[in-house]
């Protein structure tokens, strides 16, 4: 038998496999005993070698089982995907070892040692997370200080929004226009009146009490609805051949895109009231929505401009040759095509908008992250920051991940159309 240590070959397949798997398993046993039983089987070696021993053993093991075209399907798949070279083998081992070392404690913290039952901090006895905190404060995290008895109003508004957006896809095409018009002009007024009350015998609830995740949705929904038309006009303005309009649009867009949102919110909070006539007061939430709308409109304008630039010149020429004026050409020919092109971009802008809403804490409005900041300073619930922020991160992650997947799907679908 002729074993070539440097270049394992097919002839002695079983010997190499035994050698390789043996070394690999010693490496794994080492890391397992280290992680779970706190026992180091390689402590006879000096420090650094003992520390790296699982990696070295594993790397040698993987080297021995790296046999091309071995005829064994599983082995070939493993070699191709995890073990194509020494470098790849070490990378795979590092990833596996990191998972072995850090995944179980994480799962223990989040699930197995966690507390789900109970109503107070004292009932959290395990070492793991205290999800009781999230459970007790859940209502506040969702609705802020909005009175419990009136929360159906927020729910109703959201159902209306989801229903009307859903009906765009279900109802025949000719209703689409009316639903979009309803969403753009009538829905904001209805929703605002239902949520803030004061009409139809509904109790007036001041905006200071709004909060939690629903505030995130309210701010992003209103900002999206308003920033879209402004963005379209800014984009048209930027491409206009009238210098005064072109340069004022460019100035507006670059101004907002050049500053951080937080300074814009500061502006809306401290500087904007100075610009209003003496004695007039504008609601804090309204100012925030205006600020975010203008800020996002600048980004939306750049997205729409991308769509306008992507349209071939022939579309403009064809529309003009039919005798259409500027507005008819844009609203009937150019914009419908351009907007379709940039739907993914619009979705991404909206995603950025949702991720930006927690910033409204600077003016004292408490959406989800802000409510958690408030709850973690409650004397009965000190030391719950991790649970709270992990929960918030999870909620935002689900929303944003779903949206980004949706926009990726749209991108794929729209790109195959052409």
């Amino acid at each position: 038998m002729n074993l070539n240590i440097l270049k394992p070959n097919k002839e002695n397949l079983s010997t190499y496999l035994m050698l390789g798997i043996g070394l690999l398993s010693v490496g794994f046993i080492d890391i397992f005993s280290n992680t779970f039983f706190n026992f180091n089987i390689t402590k006879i070696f000096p420090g650094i070698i003992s520390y790296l021993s699982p990696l070295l053993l594993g790397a040698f093991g993987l080297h021995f089982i790296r046999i091309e075209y071995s005829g064994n399907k599983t082995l070939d798949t493993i070699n191709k995907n995890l073990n194509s070279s020494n470098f790849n083998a070490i990378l795979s081992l590092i990833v596996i070892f990191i998972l072995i070392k850090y995944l179980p404690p994480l799962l223990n913290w989040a699930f197995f040692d966690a507390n789900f039952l109970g109503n107070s901090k004292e009932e959290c006895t395990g070492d793991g997370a205290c999800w009781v905190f999230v459970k007790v404060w859940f209502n506040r995290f969702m609705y802020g200080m909005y009175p419990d008895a009136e929360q159906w109003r927020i729910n109703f508004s959201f159902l209306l929004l989801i229903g009307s957006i859903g009906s765009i896809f279900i109802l025949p095409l000719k209703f689409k226009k009316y639903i979009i018009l309803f969403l753009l002009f009538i829905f904001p007024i209805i929703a605002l009146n239902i949520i803030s009350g004061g009409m139809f015998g509904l109790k007036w609830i001041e905006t200071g009490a709004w909060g939690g995740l629903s505030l995130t949705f309210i701010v992003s929904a209103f900002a999206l609805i308003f920033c879209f038309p402004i963005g379209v006009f800014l984009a048209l303005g930027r491409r206009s051949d009238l210098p005064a309009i072109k340069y004022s649009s460019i100035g507006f867009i670059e101004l907002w895109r050049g500053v951080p949102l937080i300074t814009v919110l500061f502006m809306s909070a401290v500087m904007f009231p100075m610009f209003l006539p003496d004695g007039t007061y504008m609601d804090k939430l309204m100012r925030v929505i205006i600020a975010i709308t203008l800020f996002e409109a600048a980004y939306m304008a750049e997205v729409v401009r991308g769509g306008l630039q992507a349209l071939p010149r022939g579309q403009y020429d064809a529309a003009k040759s039919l005798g259409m004026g500027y507005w008819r050409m844009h609203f009937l020919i150019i914009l419908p095509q351009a907007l379709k092109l940039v739907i993914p971009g619009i979705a991404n802008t909206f995603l950025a908008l949702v991720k930006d809403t927690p910033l409204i804490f600077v003016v004292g409005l408490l959406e989800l992250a802000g409510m958690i900041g408030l709850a973690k300073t409650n004397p009965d619930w000190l030391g719950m920051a991790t649970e709270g922020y992990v929960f918030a991160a999870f909620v935002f992650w689900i929303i944003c991940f779903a949206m980004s997947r949706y926009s990726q799907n749209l991108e794929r679908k729209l790109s195959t159309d052409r």
Partner: protein
Amino acid sequence: MNLNFFFINLKNKKRLIPQVLTLLFIALGISYFAFNAQVNMGNRGISFGYGFLSQEASFDIGFSLIDYDGSHTYARAFLVGLLNTLLVSSIGILIATLIGVTVGIGRLSSNYLVAKFSEVYVEVFRNIPLLLQLFFWYFAALRALPLPEQAINFNDISYLTVKGWYVPKFLWTNFSIFIYSILASIVAIIFVSKYARKQREEFGKHISSFYIGMSLLFLIPSLSFLIGGVTLNFEIPVLKQMSTTIFNFHGGVSIIPELLSLAMALSMYTATFIAENVRAGILGIGKGQKEAAASIGLTKAQILKLVVLPQALRIIIPPTTNQYLNLTKNSSLAAAIAYPDLVLVFAGTALMQTGRAIEIVSITMGTYLLISLSISSFMNWYNKSVAIKEK
């Protein structure tokens, strides 16, 4: 004199009216706001002006790169904030680029585990709002670090504690000579690479400018140590007992947890976008390019250096610059965890003390605008210089 200028014909009228209306609208809006502002400030007894910048600030800032205390002026406080913003942005940009490039290449790896790991990293950190990540690092992760007496020890020279990260301080003598030596070596490298290029293009001689440059970069600064009188010592942080129960580190440089968590959140968030840019850049190069390069006998390293990277960088750099700008702007989230950056120091504390909303907010926004515009114009210039020049 051209009389046509005064007699506007129909076509010009059509062009002129919307423009005049727009300008009129803007002018009216601005003067309306300015009028209100004047009335409001008059009622509160304050007058518009930037004179307050030279007044004494009389507040302290917890972390400062330059000499500052309460007796300095507001202008100095502004500078402290600006420097802190630039510091955290440059640290963030550096780390974000490192992570982003690694992860971006990792996503294209043939290794299934590495590719999946990179993908999970990107999807997780991209879809969580930056502010939440910042809160998580600051209020949850870094608060779980041990007290100074049980600090996490890195080889007895650096300690990580709940109060910050203590690293050795560099004590230089004749630091300026060292800087000059680095500048000199950079000039020498530029000269050598130009010479090498000339030799190659005119005589076909190959001079390995890379190795010569590397050795120059090492040799000239080390010469400054040997004969230039430059010395470098380290001041290592030492644990000291303040009272029976309170311990703290003395000496060295303390990197405050605010800076640590801000840099961490900014770089890990932005790295996901950079990773996607890198991936798109590498994927954007056709297979044919690599095959063509291989067919004329270039080695794998040469293909990467001469064919793939120059083309990929052209795709990667513009969106990545955008991300650098976003990172700089996002560093203003510092206000949420009380890291004394431009927004917190100036638009926060200074504004609260002086009440000069318009001046301070306009200075703050103007500064960010200036940073953004200068970086983006530099990058536009760079883009033009690397763009494909079609003949």
